């Protein structure tokens, strides 16, 4: 399988007349297609910015970025990338079903392949069928995030970018959604880039974990976890090897902060 992401010498910043800020500096990263990659880092290290460069929401100042072998723009306009935000970003005036259908209704001009209406399938997959006619404010935080994930999956993207999607949820809901997400990934093998603050979540989910340091953002640690996990990216949160891995990641994160 080829590379889903290839970044070399990536500089990202916001050019201001008075305070030009550098967010990412000289970032190199290669991610194999089909990988579940967790991205850890202190606040302000540019984790979210990295996702936004890949999704063609921000243009880098310098360096090379290829997504699925192409420019971020062509991948985005072909609808090959799905994005899940920390707040679900469900439109409050649409029901759950209509929120899921949004990708079918906009941006069709740049599509090169037809998008199948899998709304009902995804509602069922995410256990939302009974809630399909509710409005977002009538859902719990976990249900809202499930709807946001279902919406991101509607176009069957080859790359799923998740920006702290479970950051605002309670621990029980978060653990449950982690397992649902892993099951989904095992079935589809979509490349997932998952940004999180939580070391436990990063290690439990990722086949590979990278740690970014702040000021300027760069990769300071890169661990392949396939050797410490069972096949299919399976592990137990209580497994001593996993606990030890988390402790190692904590040390790397502390060094980066």
């Amino acid at each position, binding site marked *: 399988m080829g590379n889903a992401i290839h970044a070399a010498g990536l500089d990202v910043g916001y050019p201001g007349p008075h305070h030009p800020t550098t967010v990412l500096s000289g970032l190199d990263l290669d991610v194999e297609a089909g990988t579940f990659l967790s991205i850890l880092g202190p606040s302000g290290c540019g984790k979210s910015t990295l996702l*936004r460069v890949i*999704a063609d929401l921000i243009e880098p100042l310098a360096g090379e970025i290829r997504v699925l072998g192409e420019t971020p723009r062509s991948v985005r*306009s072909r609808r090959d*990338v799905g994005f899940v*935000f920390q707040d679900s*970003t469900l439109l409050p*005036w649409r029901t759950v079903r209509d929120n899921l259908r949004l990708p079918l*209704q*906009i941006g069709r001009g740049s599509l090169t392949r037809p998008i199948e209406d899998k709304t009902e399938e995804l509602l069922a997959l995410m256990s939302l069928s009974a809630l399909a006619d509710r409005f977002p404010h009538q859902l719990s935080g976990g249900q809202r995030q499930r709807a946001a994930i279902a919406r991101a999956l509607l176009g069957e993207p080859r790359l799923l970018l998740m920006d702290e999607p479970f950051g605002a949820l309670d621990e029980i809901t978060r653990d449950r959604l982690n397992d649902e997400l892993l099951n989904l990934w095992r079935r589809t093998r979509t490349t997932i880039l998952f940004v999180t603050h939580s070391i436990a979540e990063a290690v439990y989910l990722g086949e590979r974990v990278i740690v970014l340091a702040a000021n300027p953002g760069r990769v300071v640690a890169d661990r392949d976890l396939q050797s410490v996990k069972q096949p299919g990216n399976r592990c137990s949160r209580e497994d001593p090897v996993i606990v030890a891995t988390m402790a190692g990641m904590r040390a790397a994160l502390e060094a980066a902060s």
Partner: protein
Amino acid sequence: MIAHGGLSPTAQAVLPILGVGSLLVAWQFLLPAAGVPAYIVPTPSAIFAVFAKSGPLLLGNFWPTAIEAIAGFTIGNFSAILLAIVFVHSRILQAAYFPVVLFFNTIPVLALSPIIILIFGLGMTPKIVIAAVICFFPTLINMIRGLDSATANEHELFRVLSSNRSELFWRLRLPRALPMLFSSLRIASATAVIGAIVGEWIGSDKGLGALIIQATFNYQSDRLYAAIVLSSLLSIGLFLVVVTVERKLIRY
């Protein structure tokens, strides 16, 4: 029943009626007993009698005001909405012309009315213009804020989905703006009537404003109060229309 301070639904429905009724009874019997002359405050029954006696006269003056208020409301709000759409799509035009709009808003409408009447004459047009001007500014401000109120994440979501400008407008900015638009339309439903009546005060021989002026000069206070009641009913009617449309459009 705990809700609303422990009142039962029946009490919540009946108490406002009793409240209004008690005030009307006090007005009917206590004010005359206290020696307030009828030419200053006529009794509710006297005002009601005017409706029975001079119904055609009142209605004949009600409709011009209603038409002016509704036309002014429609034109003023519609042009405010259009200008807001132009402004949020062109920061250059907004930067150039918003200060001008802001300056015009500082001129009291009452001071502007004689000029509007000079320009448009004595027919219905100047009243419609005054009603429109009075509705325009609050709606413009609210609509601009509403159209700009989508969050950064919502804009990013639409960009990830490669939406074009018109999709962004119809599916994000406009629905986002509706709650703010309607809060200003609700206020405009009352101010449009004020605008029409103020216009009629300055130069008109028909309409509720003209009737109010005539009745005042002729000491026909029962007719004056009846005209006031009709103006208020007109505002309430417009308000109810706005709220009904709002409930239909904003269901969440």
